[in-house]
C-alpha cells in the first residue's frame, strides 16, 4: 500500500504499453503494482512480426517524423486527433534507439547500423525489425528492464490476476481496482494513486481473430461500465489474409502476395475438387479480374472486402469462408529463399505444404483502432484513470498502418507514466473513509461471482460466446449494412438476456477457467454493443468502416470521434470534434492515385516486396516541417513541444515526469 508520501501506481496489463509505463514510473523512483492475466512476458505483444516504425532516415530517402506523421494521419483517414500522432512520430526514432540500447537484436546494415524495411502505407524504409518476430524482442527488452526494477523492489508483479473493476470514490475519482487471483478466485482491492489501463485489444469479441486469447477487451469494458468513455469503437481493422483455424485465425503476411501469390476460388459454387485438379479456366482470380492494374496487390482494405464479398456470395471454397492464396506456381527454391519463415508457420499449423498445395485464407479481425477515450496525456475522463496501447483510441484514427501499433504502445506508455505521476503528486489522498470504498467494491464483485456460481440455468457460456463471435464477424466487420447492424444489436440483447441463465459448468472452483470466462463474456457483450451501435450510427465509409449504402467519406457529418458512455442500460453516444489543425483533411482517392501507386509498386520491386496501399497516393509534396531529424534534433524538439500543447489545458511535457528525460 502507498505510504503517506510514496506514490503507488497500478498498471493493468504487461504488454508493450504496460511495461513501457512500468519502466518509466520505476525509473522515476515510484512504486508500481503490475497486474496481468498471463505472465507479462507472455503478453499478446509477442505476436507482432513485422516491425516498429520510426523515421530514422538512414537510407538517404529524406524521411522525417513529419512524413511519418502525415502517413499515419492519412492512413487513418483523418479521424485521429493530430497533436498526439505528431508527438508519437517525433518520439519514434528515439524509441527505436532506446530499444537498440536495451539490446534488441535489430537487423543491421553492412555498416552495423540499424536496418529498416518498407511497410504498407509509406514510401520510406521506416520499419526497424528483429528477424521475423519484432514484437517478441521488443516485449522481452522491456520485460528485462522491468525485471531489473522488480529485483530492486520498485515493481511488484501480480501475474495470474485479472482486473475486475475500478474502485471509484463518491466523486467519481478512481482510487484503485479490484482484481481476482485466477488460482484461488480470491478478490483483492489494489489501492493506487492512479491506475493505467494497458490491456490490449478486444479481438475475442469476434470469436476468432488474430489476437491472443487474453485479448477480450473485458477490462476496458469494465471501465466503460463504470463511467469511462469509449471512443471510435466501430473502427475494427480486418486483415485480408489470415489462416482460418479451429481455435484462432493466424496471420499470413502480406509478403506472400508481394512475392506473387495469387488469390482465387473455383468458378463453380461448392466445387469440391482438390485445388490441383481444377483447370486454370475454371478458377476465378477475382482480384486480378476486378483490378487488372494491381491484381493481388490491391490495398489491404480492398482485398479484405473483395474476399469477404466473394465468400458472402457463396463462392468460398466448398461454400466455406475460405479462398485460395496460391504460391504453387512459384519454384519451391524461390519460395524457401524469400518466404521460408512464413511458409513454415502455415505448415506448422495447417499441416499442408504451401509450396505444393494452395493455402486457404480468409480475412481476420486483427486490431481495434477504437478504445478508451484519452486526452493528449493519455488520461481518460475518469480522474486517476489513464490508458495506453491498443486499449486506447488515440493514434490510429479510422485505420492503422502496419508497424505503427508497437510504436504507439510504447509512446502511450511513456506519456501515461509521467502523467500518472503528475496526477498522483497532486491528488488528495482519501483518508480513513477510504477503506469503506474498497470494502464496498470488493463486496459488489464477490456478489457477482457468487450469483454466477449459484446460477443453474440451461444456457452454455461458451455457446453464447460462439454465437456472439459469429454475429459480430458476419455483420460488424468488413461490410456493414444498417439493417444487419440493427439485427446484430437485437441479437446481442438476446444474448445478454440468455447470459442470465448460464450455469458455470465447473464444480471445482480452484483455478477454474469457467468463472473468469463468464465474467469476461458479460463485458464482451457490453462492448460488442458499443462497436455495433457505433457502426450503425456512422452513416459513411471511412478507413476500416465500410457501408455500401454510404460509400463515401462524409467529413461534413462524420469527421468526429464517436464517444460511447454507459447508461446502465447500454451505450449512449455523443460526438467530439477531431483536432485537424496540423494537416487539413484530403480525400483518399483511389482512382486518381493510380499513376502514383504504380510507381510505388514498381519501386518496391527489388527488396522485400510490399503491398502498395491506397495510403501511398496523394503524398504531400513538400510540407514544411521539421524535415531533418538527425542533424536538427534540438531544434525539432523545441518546436514540437510548443506545438503539441494545443487542446485542453495540456501543458505537461513528457520531460517533466522523470525529471531527467530529454525526449523519451
Amino acid at each position: 500500500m502507498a505510504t503517506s508520501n510514496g506514490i503507488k501506481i497500478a498498471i493493468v496489463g504487461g504488454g508493450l504499453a504496460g511495461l513501457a509505463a512500468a519502466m518509466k514510473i520505476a525509473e522515476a523512483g515510484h512504486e508500481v503494482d503490475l497486474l496481468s492475466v498471463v505472465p507479462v512476458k507472455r503478453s499478446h505483444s509477442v505476436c507482432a512480426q513485422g516491425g516498429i516504425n520510426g523515421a530514422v532516415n538512414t537510407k538517404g530517402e529524406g524521411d522525417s517524423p513529419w512524413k511519418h506523421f502525415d502517413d499515419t494521419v492519412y492512413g487513418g483517414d483523418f479521424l485521429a486527433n493530430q497533436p498526439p500522432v505528431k508527438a508519437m512520430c517525433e518520439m519514434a526514432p528515439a524509441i527505436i534507439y532506446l530499444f537498440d540500447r536495451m539490446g534488441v537484436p535489430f537487423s543491421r546494415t553492412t555498416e552495423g547500423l540499424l536496418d529498416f524495411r518498407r511497410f504498407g502505407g509509406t514510401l520510406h524504409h521506416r520499419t526497424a525489425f528483429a528477424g521475423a518476430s519484432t514484437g517478441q524482442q521488443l516485449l522481452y527488452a522491456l520485460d528485462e528492464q522491468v525485471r531489473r526494477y522488480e529485483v530492486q523492489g520498485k515493481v511488484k508483479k501480480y501475474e495470474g490476476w485479472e482486473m475486475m473493476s475500478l474502485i471509484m470514490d463518491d466523486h467519481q475519482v478512481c482510487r484503485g481496482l479490484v482484481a481476482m487471483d485466477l488460482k484461488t478466485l480470491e478478490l483483492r482491492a489494489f489501492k493506487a494513486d492512479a491506475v493505467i489501463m494497458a490491456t490490449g485489444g478486444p479481438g475475442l469479441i469476434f470469436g476468432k481473430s488474430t489476437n491472443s486469447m487474453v485479448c477480450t477487451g473485458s477490462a476496458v469494458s469494465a471501465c466503460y461500465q463504470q463511467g469511462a468513455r469509449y471512443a471510435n469503437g466501430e473502427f475494427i481493422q480486418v486483415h485480408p489474409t489470415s489462416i482460418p483455424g479451429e481455435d484462432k485465425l493466424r496471420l499470413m503476411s502480406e509478403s506472400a502476395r508481394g512475392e506473387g501469390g495469387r488469390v482465387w476460388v473455383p468458378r463453380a459454387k461448392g466445387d469440391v475438387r482438390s485445388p490441383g485438379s481444377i483447370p486454370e479456366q475454371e478458377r476465378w482470380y477475382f482480384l486480378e479480374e476486378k483490378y487488372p492494374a494491381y491484381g493481388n496487390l490491391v490495398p489491404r482494405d480492398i482485398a479484405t472486402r473483395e474476399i469477404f464479398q466473394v465468400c458472402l456470395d457463396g463462392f468460398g471454397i466448398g461454400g466455406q469462408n475460405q479462398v485460395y492464396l496460391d504460391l504453387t506456381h512459384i519454384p519451391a527454391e524461390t519460395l524457401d529463399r524469400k518466404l521460408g519463415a512464413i511458409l513454415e508457420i502455415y505448415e506448422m499449423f495447417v499441416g499442408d505444404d504451401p509450396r505444393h498445395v494452395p493455402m486457404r485464407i480468409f480475412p481476420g479481425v486483427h486490431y481495434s483502432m477504437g478504445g478508451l477515450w484519452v486526452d493528449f496525456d493519455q488520461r481518460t475522463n475518469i480522474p486517476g484513470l489513464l490508458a495506453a496501447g491498443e486499449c486506447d483510441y488515440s493514434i490510429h484514427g479510422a485505420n492503422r498502418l502496419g508497424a505503427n501499433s508497437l510504436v504507439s504502445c510504447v509512446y502511450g506508455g511513456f506519456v501515461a507514466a509521467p502523467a500518472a505521476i503528475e496526477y498522483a503528486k497532486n491528488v488528495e489522498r482519501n483518508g480513513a473513509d477510504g477503506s469503506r470504498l474498497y470494502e464496498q467494491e470488493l463486496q459488489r464483485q464477490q456478489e457477482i461471482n457468487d450469483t454466477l456460481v449459484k446460477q443453474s440455468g440451461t444456457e452454455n457460456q461458451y455457446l453464447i460466446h460462439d454465437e456472439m463471435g459469429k454475429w459480430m464477424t458476419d455483420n460488424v466487420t468488413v461490410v456493414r449494412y444498417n439493417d444487419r447492424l440493427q439485427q446484430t444489436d437485437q441479437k446481442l440483447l438476446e444474448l445478454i438476456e440468455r447470459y442470465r441463465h448460464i450455469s458455470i459448468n465447473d464444480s471445482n472452483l480452484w483455478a477454474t477457467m469457467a468463472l473468469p470466462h463468464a465474467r469476461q463474456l458479460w463485458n464482451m457483450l457490453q462492448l460488442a454493443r458499443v462497436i455495433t451501435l457505433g457502426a450503425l450510427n456512422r452513416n459513411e465509409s471511412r478507413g476500416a468502416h465500410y457501408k455500401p449504402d454510404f460509400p463515401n467519406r462524409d467529413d461534413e457529418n462524420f469527421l468526429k470521434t464517436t464517444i460511447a458512455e454507459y447508461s446502465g442500460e447500454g451505450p449512449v453516444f455523443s460526438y467530439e470534434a477531431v483536432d485537424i489543425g496540423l494537416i487539413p483533411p484530403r480525400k483518399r482517392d483511389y482512382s486518381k492515385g493510380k499513376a502514383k501507386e504504380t510507381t510505388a509498386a514498381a519501386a518496391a520491386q527489388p527488396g522485400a516486396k510490399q503491398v502498395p496501399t491506397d495510403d501511398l497516393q496523394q503524398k504531400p509534396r513538400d510540407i514544411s516541417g521539421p524535415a531533418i531529424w538527425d542533424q536538427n534534433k534540438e531544434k525539432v524538439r523545441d518546436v514540437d513541444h510548443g506545438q503539441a500543447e494545443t487542446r485542453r489545458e495540456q501543458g505537461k511535457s513528457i520531460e517533466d515526469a522523470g525529471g531527467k528525460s530529454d525526449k523519451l
Partner: protein
Amino acid sequence: MSAHASNASETARRTPPRTVEIKIQRRENPDAPAYWETFEIPYRPNLNIISCLMEIQKNPVTKEGKKTTPPVWNMNCLEQVCGICTMVINGKVRQSCSALIDQLEQPVTLEPMSKFPNIRDLRVDRSRMFDYLKRVHAWIEIDGSYDLGPGPRMNQDDVAERYAYSRCMTCGCCLEACPQYEGDQYIGPQAIAQVRYQNMHPTGKMTRDERLEAIMGEDGITNCGNAQNCVKVCPMSIPLTKAIYEENRETIIYGLFGWLKR
C-alpha cells in the same frame, strides 16, 4: 519435418478417423492425486490440441458418458511464441497450439509438465524460470531510458547469433527434458542461454562477471550432464548446447583469472 508432416496428414486424409480420443491426466488441485479421464470428440480436419480442449470444455463428458469438470490448461497466443500452452503430448514436451491431431498417434495423451509445481490438470507454475532470469541479471544495464542516441554498432553476424537466443519464450521444454533438472538443483539451459544472450551484447559484456558468478554456484552450469536433450526439444531451435559450452568456458576462465581483476 515437412516431409514427415505432409505424409502424416496425407494418411489422415485418406482415412479420416471419425473421432479423436484424448486421455488427459487430471488433478483437482496441487495436493490432490492425479487421475486419468478419456474424452472423445468428433473428428474435423486441422484440429490442434487446443481446439480439442476447447471442444471438451464446452461440454465436459467423458468417453464413458460421465459428466465431469472441464479440464484446465493455459493458452494465449496460439502461435507458438508465448510459450504458455506447453504440456506433455504423447510423452513429448511441446506446445499444444502447434500439436496437430492429424500428426499424432491416437489416443492422444496429455499430461502436465512434471518438473514444475502443478496447479490443476494441465496447468503448472513456471514462475521459477522467471526467478532464474532475475538471478542471472538477464538484462542490459542501461544508464536510463531517456534519449541517449543509438546503441553500439554491431556486426549482422553477431546480431544473428544473438537473435537466436532472443527467441527463448521461457516455455520450459528444455528443463522438462533435462535429466539433471529436478527441483532447484540446477539452474538449467534456459537461464544459461540468456546469460550468453546478454553477455554477447557490447553493453551487456560490461557486466558479464555478475552473470558468470550467478551460474557458478552449486546449482550452476557444472551440473550439466551433457545429455543434450534440451537442444532436441527446444521449439525455438536455440543452440542451447553451444550456449552451455561457451558459458562454461567463460566461467572457467573467470574462475581462474577473475581474481586478477579485483
